[in-house]
């Protein structure tokens, strides 16, 4: 098992590696959707009253929102929610991937894990696109957490 920080393939955090493995070994799309539904339950859910224009992920067919922050140890922590469980499941993957990393690690995290999971071929290219959009937004907002001194 890797204990990586996401600089690229082979360096994924352990929890993410498990997801990548489960996802690529899933029997079919149905099973993958089932996984996403389960993952959706594990998100630190952003309550409806915190859904704002700023938290909204654009280019998504359904409403999806994310909010970046820090956990009690000063590591990265992502909250999110979506009205679609599948989309919330995808947010969950990001949450799991980035939990506890430093801001610099989050910003440098390689999006290649999306390819490794095979979201485009296993689900759909538009899902993969939406996912990458969301991931990019998380990284951009994480960068702003660093403050002016970096």
């Amino acid at each position, binding site marked *: 098992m890797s204990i990586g920080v996401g600089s690229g393939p082979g360096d994924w955090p352990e929890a993410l590696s498990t997801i990548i493995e489960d996802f690529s070994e899933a029997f079919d*799309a149905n099973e993958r*959707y089932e996984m996403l539904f389960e993952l959706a339950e594990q998100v630190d859910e952003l309550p409806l009253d915190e859904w704002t224009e700023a938290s909204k992920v654009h280019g998504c067919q359904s409403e999806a929102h994310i909010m970046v922050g820090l956990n009690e140890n000063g590591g990265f922590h992502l909250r999110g929610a979506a009205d679609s469980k*599948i989309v919330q499941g995808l947010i969950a993957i990001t949450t799991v991937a980035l939990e506890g990393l430093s801001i610099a690690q989050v910003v440098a995290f390689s999006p290649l894990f999306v390819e490794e999971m095979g979201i485009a071929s296993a689900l759909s290219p538009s899902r993969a696109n939406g996912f990458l959009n969301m991931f990019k937004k998380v990284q951009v907002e994480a960068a702003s957490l660093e403050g002016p001194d970096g």
Partner: protein
Amino acid sequence: MTWSPSQWPTPLRLDVKAARKDFPILKREMSGGRPLVYLDNSATTQKPQQVIDAMSTYYRTSNSNVHRSAHTLAEEATLGFEESREKIRNWFGATESRVVFTSGTTEAINLAAHSWAKVNLSEGDVVVLTEMEHHADIVPWQMLASEKGVELRWVPFDLETFELDMGAYEVAVQGASLVGAVHTSNVLGVRNPVELMVELAHQAGAKILIDAAQAAPHDRIGFDSLGADFLALSAHKMGGPTGIGILLIQEDAFQQMQPFMGGGDMIREVHFDYSTYQENEHRFEAGTPRIAEAIGWGAAIDWLAKWDMESVHEHGLELARFTADSLRSIPGMRVFGRQAERDGAVVSFLHDTMHANDLAAMLDAQGFAVRTGHHCAQPLLRRFDIAATNRASFWLYNTREEASAFVEATRDICQRFS
């Protein structure tokens, strides 16, 4: 209530198996080797081999521009194109009316808005629309309203019976110049009382445009006898190709229209300082027309003519009724529509906890293609306080087994995930 295919109320009157054979796409395997179950026919139907062949034969043997040259290919192309127009004219019972080719229903309605309404209406004139309209029959009139100061009046429908409020309609048409009404709703499947609507519009001195996009696949529209002034529809919802449709126009409305697109084909003479226009339908068909598409549509009509359209209608409605009844028995499922005698083969539904996109994605993973979203009818959905539904819509090649499998898959997904 759940019906099983063996308990269907009437025997098949349409040879669905034979019909299916003509559609190569229906043999396609989806992920996991599952067969394609295509239930998005209201968006567009699949095309029979005969249509595909007609278009490909045209390109392989007769491709040329129409109305322009004195050579063999040009004559064949012109003949094929104009013959298709006549087939379409006959199919829709419009022998005494005008058949103008457009890119589809949307362009047909826009043509009526630009070439008739903009020319004949002015500030304070009234256009009546129903709350069931597709965006194609809303937005052109809103544009006209903001440009010309025309007033739009909306006719509501009942949220439980899904029926148009004909009392409100009768009031709304008083003093109106034009009515725009959907023949069969693409969301609810409801077939509106268009005959009565035409009568009441005319009594009030208004012209009426019917959006028959969803009527074309299952209804024979007798345009002349219906008496509407305009009727718009698309080829692609009745087995024909995309990119072509028509506006049917009654003669006196036709005479009140002015072309809004200028160019080749629509002119009689062009001088440096002025031009004169064609007197017939070509007047509104500027530029090289959709020749292969017209020929393909003609082939679709030849193909459809093999089937008894009444049986086609009944078959679709039967599938829709079965599906609606069965979906209603799924806990948390809401079905929009009534599936009455002349309604379209459409079932819109929404689960109260399962997101429409999630349900559609999981159905898709099992090979079921259904539509999800606002169906280009946001005002209608807002009436129900919802933003989207799932929609299953059937055509003559869909089987009872497909409908049954679809219902079971939906039931199963809802049970497991909600």
